[in-house]
């Protein structure tokens, strides 16, 4: 099921029964597990996208993976591999361009170029889907995923991506943090800033591309960036940012699937809305705390 194009159609035809318990319904349980695994994988790496002010980059990577996924679906090729490869190439290109002096001083990935990539990629993907429609391309599944149609192979892939994301985070978190905090000073420390940031961007993009068959090109970047932004909004310690973002993303995914089953709604958009709601709630909480004079939590020591 992992690489089968027909799986992308399954979501629309599956009956969604209201009030089904996640604990008793295997379909709901598997869907929740898929969303949680995908959230965990994306949340850990997405924390770095947020810290590097590259949230928009994550959306662009997903957008570029979209036409690749359409083409792979039509050709019967592995969607995850195609999406990850194209997104990773985009990450490498952005990483190389980000080596400019302006970016080294901490500037974000150029927004205009990113916006162009998003628009062009989505337009290309939709046109390709229209041309290839007879071969069975489902736009809804590619945009919001197909958590109801995933199998054990998909969940295994998501688990592997989550483990790789965790390993990268653990290995490079100190250097990545130094770059996020002050790229110029990190370079003065002798860190290979461009290479390190490129590696991070490639990892983020590849993870988004890899989970695209399950979570879709709109849901994947949302789960990558919104949970981390929510955690950062309440000024949690940097040390806990990536783990908390992964947990928040996983919980948002599982909760979204549960709500979708309870209300008989499409799971993908509901998961995305849950992530948005969590972010809005944390921002509101932070605002209330700020007006109330509460001080931000003291940062825990990094390491």
């Amino acid at each position, binding site marked *: 099921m992992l690489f089968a194009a027909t799986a992308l159609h399954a979501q629309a035809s599956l009956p969604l029964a209201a009030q089904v318990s996640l604990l008793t319904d295997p379909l709901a349980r598997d869907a929740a597990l898929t969303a949680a695994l995908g959230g965990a994988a994306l949340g850990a790496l997405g924390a770095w996208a947020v*810290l590097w002010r590259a949230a928009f980059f994550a959306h662009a990577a997903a957008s570029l993976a979209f036409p690749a996924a359409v083409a792979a679906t039509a050709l019967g090729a592995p969607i995850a591999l195609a999406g990850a490869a194209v997104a990773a190439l985009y990450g490498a290109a952005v990483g190389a361009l980000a080596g400019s002096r302006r970016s080294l*001083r*901490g500037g974000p990935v150029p927004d205009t170029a990113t916006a162009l990539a998003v628009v062009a990629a989505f337009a290309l993907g939709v046109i390709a889907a229209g041309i290839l429609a007879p071969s069975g391309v489902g736009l809804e599944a590619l945009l919001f995923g197909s958590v109801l149609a995933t199998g054990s192979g998909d969940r295994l892939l998501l688990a592997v991506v989550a483990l790789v994301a965790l390993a990268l985070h653990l*290995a*490079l978190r*100190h*250097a990545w*943090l*130094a770059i*996020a*905090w*002050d790229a*110029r*000073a*990190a*370079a*003065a*420390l*002798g*860190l290979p800033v461009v290479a*390190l940031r490129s590696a991070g961007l490639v990892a983020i993009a590849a993870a988004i591309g890899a989970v695209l068959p399950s979570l879709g090109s709109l849901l994947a970047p949302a789960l990558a960036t919104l949970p981390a932004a929510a955690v*950062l909004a309440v*000024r*949690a*310690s*940097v040390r806990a940012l990536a783990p908390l973002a992964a947990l928040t993303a996983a919980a948002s995914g599982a909760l979204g699937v549960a709500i979708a089953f309870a209300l008989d709604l499409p799971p993908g958009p509901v998961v995305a809305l849950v992530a948005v709601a969590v972010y809005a709630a944390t921002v509101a909480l932070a605002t209330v705390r700020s007006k109330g004079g509460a001080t*931000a*939590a*003291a*940062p825990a*020591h*990094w*390491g």
Partner: protein
Amino acid sequence: MTAVPASRCPRPAAANDTGASAARPPTPAAARADASGSAAAAPSHRQPLVEVAAATFGYAGRPVLRDVSFTVEPGSAVAVIGPNGSGKSTLLRALAGELAPLAGTVRTTHRPAYLPQDSRPRSDIPLSAFDVALMGTLARRSLWRPPRRGDRRAAHAALAAVGLAELRDAPFAALSGGQKQRVLLARALAQGSPLLVLDEPFAAVDAAAAGELEELLLSLREQGHGLVVATHDLASARRFDRVLCLNGRQLAFDRPERALTATTLAATFGREALVIEGSGRAVAAAAPHRHSGHGER
């Protein structure tokens, strides 16, 4: 000491590769031993940390600073003065290994701890003073190795050396300008290099904080560090061991009383200088310098 282009200055060996060195505070002697890997390979006490000979520096093959020759020995402090665009930051970047000389040689025994002028710490990432100081140890350990006890000790020692041990848990963003500069200096000390290269460390702080920072730097000199400090404060420069005057080329490198003469200052600052002869001293007031210092984003 090996002659190498500035861009190839060797990165010192990780100070914490061995347990014995891991617990050392960031003193120059410890750094020398760490960087060389053995006491026998460490430079002698008076061997220059920096030797620049007939060097020309520039960008894209276009020279911006010529005829530079000077040395920095352990336990000595060199003030680099000159107007905007005179080549101060270019020289310091070259010493830090970020810029290769177009001509001549730059020799360093260690990769210096470099505090660039265009550093922009972010205030929206919640880091403590200790977190920032600990970052300095990244310069001497492998990228994927988490900080160990010795690294934390080095960061603690560095914060103590700059007088901020009690503020180790304070958010960096909440510190005053002078305190932030001290924390950044602690990060430089935590690198364990005996050579500190600081680009206008007094720029973003008030007079009182600048005075305290100056005292701190001079105390580090007494501990054996070599210092190269770009500054616009001529009164401060008088307290250094040597003054290097730049304006597109080297105009003087000598003790302050011999370098900071009316003639040299006029040649260094040109129309920006106001030179007043009196009481046997020359005082120059440079035109206001526009820069952002170590501001935050």
